[in-house]
């Protein structure tokens, strides 16, 4: 029973972070129809920015909104000055372009920071472990899960209760119709990538605390994000959440019961089955034919 609870709580942590990351990725894929491989780089940048800010003395919890802000601008710039140029091209072009940018980012990180893992030390007020029913819950993990959920709630509020959110949803549903009602698609694209980048940055910041910042951290979690996104389905906010829960559970259970390498295998197999049976994902709606 204790093992089950432990698995459950560990999976919640993983699910929380994956949900934040997947939310951003699902946005870009769903709205722009771009498989943005630079997302991994955004996560990595978020981790390093957060680490850097912490290093110069800013309290960790404060680095999160700052990272989000900085990554927002980075995402906007990347979309406006780079990705915009392949929007109307073949899919392969945007995949290749974002892959190239990812390489540049990882390469620069390797050059400036080297491959040494850099970890944010847990701040004093977050140290300690809570014990419920024999399950150890480090405060760190509780806080990070809460932060992840809070971010998701903010994003959900943004999409449901603001005009820009509605505009993004409209663009996702039908780009041409959105243009017809006067929505500036270019701005929407920039905004979407910016939001996605800030979510990636937030995930990176959390990762820097719970794990550590390294140039490869984005690539490492990127596969899991893809799994979560496909599982949850494009086109909804709840989708990535649900997907993250399922994947978090599967990976956590597999890791505890069989060993870490089985975790990703289980996740990948689950998604492949889902793709074969229901390509739009658990909660997704098919907005694009191709």
């Amino acid at each position, binding site marked *: 029973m204790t093992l089950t609870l432990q698995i459950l709580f560990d999976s919640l942590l993983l699910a929380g972070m994956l949900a934040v990351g997947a939310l951003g990725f699902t946005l870009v*894929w769903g709205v722009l*129809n771009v*498989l943005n491989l630079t997302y991994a780089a955004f996560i990595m940048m978020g981790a390093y920015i957060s680490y850097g800010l912490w290093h110069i003395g800013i309290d960790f919890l404060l680095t999160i909104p700052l990272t989000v802000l900085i990554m927002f601008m980075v995402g906007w710039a990347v979309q406006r000055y*780079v990705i*915009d*140029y*392949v*929007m*109307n*091209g073949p*899919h*392969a*072009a945007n*995949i*290749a*372009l974002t*892959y*190239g*940018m*990812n*390489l*540049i*980012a*990882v*390469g*620069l990180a*390797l*050059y400036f920071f080297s491959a040494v893992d850099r970890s944010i030390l847990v701040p004093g007020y977050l140290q300690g472990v809570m014990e419920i029913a024999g399950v150890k819950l480090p405060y760190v993990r509780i806080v990070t899960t809460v932060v992840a959920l809070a971010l998701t709630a903010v994003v959900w509020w943004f999409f449901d209760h603001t005009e820009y959110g509605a505009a993004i949803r409209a663009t996702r549903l039908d780009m041409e119709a959105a243009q017809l009602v006067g929505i500036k*698609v*270019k701005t929407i*694209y920039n905004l979407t990538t910016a939001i996605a980048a800030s979510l990636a940055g937030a995930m990176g910041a959390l990762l820097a605390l719970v794990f550590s910042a390294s140039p490869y951290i984005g690539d490492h979690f990127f*596969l899991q994000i*893809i*799994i979560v996104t*496909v599982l949850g389905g494009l086109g909804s906010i709840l989708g990535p959440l649900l997907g993250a829960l399922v994947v978090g559970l599967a990976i956590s259970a597999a890791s505890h019961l069989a*060993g870490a*390498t*089985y975790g*990703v*295998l289980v996740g*990948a*197999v689950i*998604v*492949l089955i889902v*793709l*074969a049976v229901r*390509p739009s994902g658990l909660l997704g709606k098919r907005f*694009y*034919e*191709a």
Partner: protein
Amino acid sequence: MLLPFQMGAAVPAARSPAVLALIILLVVALVAPTFLSSYMLRFAALALMYLALAQSWNLIGGYGGLMSLAMPAFFGSGAVVSGILVNSGVSAVLSVAGGTAVALLIALIIAAPTLRLQGHYFVVATILVAEALRNGILNINAFGFSGSSSLNVFNSVGLDHLEPRAYNEFFYYVMLALAAVAMLTVFVLERSRWGYALRSVRDNERAARAMGISVERQKLYVFLLSAGMAGVVGGVWAFWLGIVETNDAFSFTFAFDVIVMVFLGGRGTLWGPVAGVCLVLAVNEWIGVGFPELHLVISGLLVTLVVLFLPDGLVGLRGGLKAIAPAQLMRNLRRYKVK
């Protein structure tokens, strides 16, 4: 039922410049080892291997229009299975054949569910297949084979009595044979009815279907062909290296390198991959020696710039110098820009 290679005879091309170029290259390649230093020999053999892989991806990604990232699955299974077989006493040639057969089998199994996915879902599915296979093999611990430890095949291949130079020369010729077959396959495909059918599927599925072309069959055939070629190269690579390490065999590095090479050179063309392989390997050598820390950055920069400014790849330069005039480059940049 007509198989693709029966569907049409290749247009007689005995006098075409492409044939002449191919023949000249082949002759040069055949005599090259006598002039090359040991280092350059290894480099050339590696280049030929990449050429074979690049053409195999060119088939599915360039002519087929399917951005498949499943190459690690086929390359890796070819390598691993060949390794297991040769260590169990099977002859080297049969082992590679066995490895290729397994790669083809895997391709057959995953073809049905993945090929009907559209757009990005297909790409993601291929990534997942490769990753799932890699993790699966890492976890295998049966029949004396442990996936997580490396497999030493050097002694079983039967070439351990050769001097290093002769050893590399042997594999140079094997890779040359593979590359030649790959080039020939693409050459024949370009000029055959099958090639036209494939390209029409790539360019407009609905129109192709309306013409009576079976879209599913075309995708399946090119998928299998590409997988088989990757499997063979994987098996030979494993023997050349002498050691099979699961993570290396299934790593995406090969796949991305190959895809970048094909993109840079020009997808869907015969000479594109040749140009791409030469350029990427040359750049790697140059920066690997001069600026090793910036390796990834420069590779990434190269890919980004080519996708933005030269979307058709290097073969687009065939138009002469005016193809890289700044005005033309800016036009290329704006070609796919969102309005």
